[in-house]
């Protein structure tokens, strides 16, 4: 029952993160939203694996935790040190 509540809260926050990723306005907001979304996915998978009674799924949550970090690094790397075309309007986009 409580796990259900947690899962629903996670879904709601995921929706909020999607809204932020779409609204922007700066590129950093979008990166923040993706990062937030990734952490929530980790937690959702962990919670769902207990709702379904299959703790094998925890391996998946584990790999999400790693991938999420890597994608933040990737975005920062390509955004900061990419070509000038990417950097032309730092901060304000859209």
């Amino acid at each position, binding site marked *: 029952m409580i796990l259900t509540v947690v899962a629903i809260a996670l879904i709601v926050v995921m929706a909020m993160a999607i809204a932020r990723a779409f609204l922007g306005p700066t590129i950093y907001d979008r990166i923040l939203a993706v990062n937030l979304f*990734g952490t929530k996915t980790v937690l959702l998978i962990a919670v*769902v694996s207990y*709702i379904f009674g299959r703790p094998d799924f925890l391996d998946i949550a584990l790999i999400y935790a790693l991938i999420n970090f890597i994608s933040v690094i990737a975005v920062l790397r390509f955004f900061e040190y990419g070509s000038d075309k*990417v950097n032309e309007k730092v901060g304000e986009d859209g």
Partner: protein
Amino acid sequence: MFAISTLLDISVLTLLVIVALAMVRERDLFATVMLSGIYGLLSASFFVLMDAADVAFTEAAVGAGIFPLLMLTVLTSVGRYEAGERRVRILPLMLMLALAGALFAAVVQMPAFGAVDAPSHAHVAQRYIYDSPDEIGIPNMVTSVLASYRGFDTLGEVVVIFTAAVGVVVILLGGRPKTPQQSSQALMAEHKVLRIVGKMLIPLILLFGLYVQFHGEYGPGGGFQAGVIFAVGIILYAMLFGLSNAQRVVPLGVLRWLVALGVLIYGSVGLASLLAGGEYLNYSVLANDSVTGQHIGIIVIELGVGITVASAMVLIFFAFTRATRSRDELEE
């Protein structure tokens, strides 16, 4: 319990549609790639909800990890914004509406979602579910179907990955590198904390990759997943410490050999079973006892799959990075 899984299913799918529509509207390709990362994470959560643990594993590493990574690399070269006016094109829109209508009409004729007696569960699936634990002797049915019952199909998939990697190398590393267009900058030198935490994480990622590789018979995992995870570890190293350092660890020449080696290992298992008197890729003849033979066969071909997938992904990433970076940065 049933109600909550339906609720989660519906909400995740709705979010997927919302993200897809947002991607249509977005003009900034960078933001679109961010959204596609979210899209990958969402579809992987959906696969977990559908009991497809192995698929979720792969999609997590591919859809949320490698796909956005490759896209970002390409964006540094092709630019961040789309050109031209965004207008609704009438003809494609009409076509799509017609297609959607036709597909909707077809879809409601299908057996209801989750029906136990759907035709797709009636035939060969029964054997996979109820006989494979005895025939193959491993608990993960996905692995036994992938590696043993459909071993020949999987060999084909591995060859496709090999071919795609060769194609990328030919296309991107064939010509001369681009002329330098930016000053050399120490990669990620600003982010000392990131570098240190990354250095701590890389061995853990590689270790986890090995765990996934060899635990694939008992839990979610296997060669495809492990290969991608292993590749992600090396790609992380390349991102934090520069391509030239990463190439010192795994040189391009070695990678080229490894991509082929994996396919070769897979194929040789088939030859070995031919020589032992069975059919191609029939592992039962590899040992005196058929279950032991299956075990040996599956471990070896999963290793081949893992080697090919990991080296193909790393090779593809290196090729992309080399093609989009300037010369002096490569020689930092």
